[in-house]
């Protein structure tokens, strides 16, 4: 039986109905049209589905949609302000830190969470911080450079 859930997504109040065993990722993608978060594995290993819940980065494939009740969710769709990209997005483009792009929304959300806690991370801290995100295309170096560069911009 579907359950009614009310939550906040990227600052907007949102209501949806979902099955109790449906993942937050499926809710975002299939019911709310927010297809930024991707399903790479569905088991918490790849990080392509990363979003923030109450200020912490999680794999939305390992969260139930019903758990979102009363929580604050942030997805990659909320990263840019209108047409103004977030520094992480700008730097990912500048450094060509993506090829197919499937991992990118997850990397952006994980990097955002990392920089919120640690505005000036070392390369090692970035690599450990992003170890829950897999990329089959870039070899990671360009991603690390983009995050370092974005961190610099964000520190001002």
């Amino acid at each position, binding site marked *: 039986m579907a*359950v009614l859930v009310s939550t906040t997504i990227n600052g907007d109040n949102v209501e949806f109905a979902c*099955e*109790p*065993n449906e*993942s937050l990722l499926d809710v975002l993608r299939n019911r709310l049209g927010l297809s930024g978060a991707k399903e790479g594995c*569905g*088991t*918490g*290993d790849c*990080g392509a589905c*990363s979003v923030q*819940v109450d200020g*912490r*980065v*999680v*794999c939305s*494939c*390992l*969260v*139930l949609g*019903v*758990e979102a*009740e009363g929580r604050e969710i942030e997805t990659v769709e909320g990263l840019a302000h209108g047409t103004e990209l977030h520094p992480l997005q700008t730097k990912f483009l500048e450094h060509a830190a993506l090829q197919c792009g499937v991992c990118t929304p997850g990397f952006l959300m*994980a990097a955002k*969470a*990392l920089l919120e806690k640690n505005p000036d991370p070392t390369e090692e801290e970035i690599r*450990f*911080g*992003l*170890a*829950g*995100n897999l990329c089959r295309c870039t070899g990671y170096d360009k991603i690390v450079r983009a995050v370092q560069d974005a961190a610099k911009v964000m520190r001002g």
Partner: protein
Amino acid sequence: MQYEAPETTKAAVGLLAKAKGSAYVLAGGSDLLVRMKGGFVEPDLVVDIKRIKPMREIKKTASGFTIGAAVSCAEMNENKALIKAWPGVVEAAGLIGSKQVQSRCTVTGNLCNSSPAADSVPALVAAGAKAVIQGPRGKRKVAVEDIPVGPGRNSLKKGELIEAIELPARKGKSGDAYLRFIPRTEMDIAVVSAGVSLTLGDKGVIKDARVALGAVAPTVRLVKEAAKAIIGTKLDEAALEKLGKAASAACSPIDDKRGTIEFRTKVAAVLAKRAAQIAYKRAGGK
């Protein structure tokens, strides 16, 4: 499947006790939701404990720390007093999964899931942690090593859940440490692991110790012989040698793609010795 998110422990126990079919507690979901997705479990009822306030708290009391069952490992790693008192327990909890998993996973879930390779469990066992269990017949406390009974099986009875993990207060010069061997540097399952906690008496002589090993038997093992090997010593070469021998002797591991019996048995000794050295240093020994 029915999903419930009660606000009190009593309500949670009531739901679990009354459940007709299969009922599961949901903490961080990093084991449960993976198993549901794989079709290994099909719960009729899931009881989410994250809305039970006392279970979200880390409390420091005269008798130690109480870590609520819904406290995430990320939250443990942000608690300065806990890190100071039990650095080994906190570093073990911090090794579980990625940042994403850390935001959700709990040490209680790690314990209840009862994997022999569970990272936080050897550290909790070494620490002498207790599980506070609530059930239809009231409250009971058991040593954490008595929770897992085999791979994927625990000793909780129908309707029971763990409300919190208690860590004893640290007295005098004490230290603990946890080490695991994995072929990568991050995001992998322990091939072998060791947790050591010890307390020093006069002149740096170890007066109390507990040693636990992971991934070398069907459940995490408390190795009393290994502790005996270092009690009464200043962790000199001879004591370390005896500790390593006792650790290896306690192993009854499996051969699998992650490691052979021989490898696990040998590395158990190495990790137990190194963890003891770190714990000794943390306790202020030289």
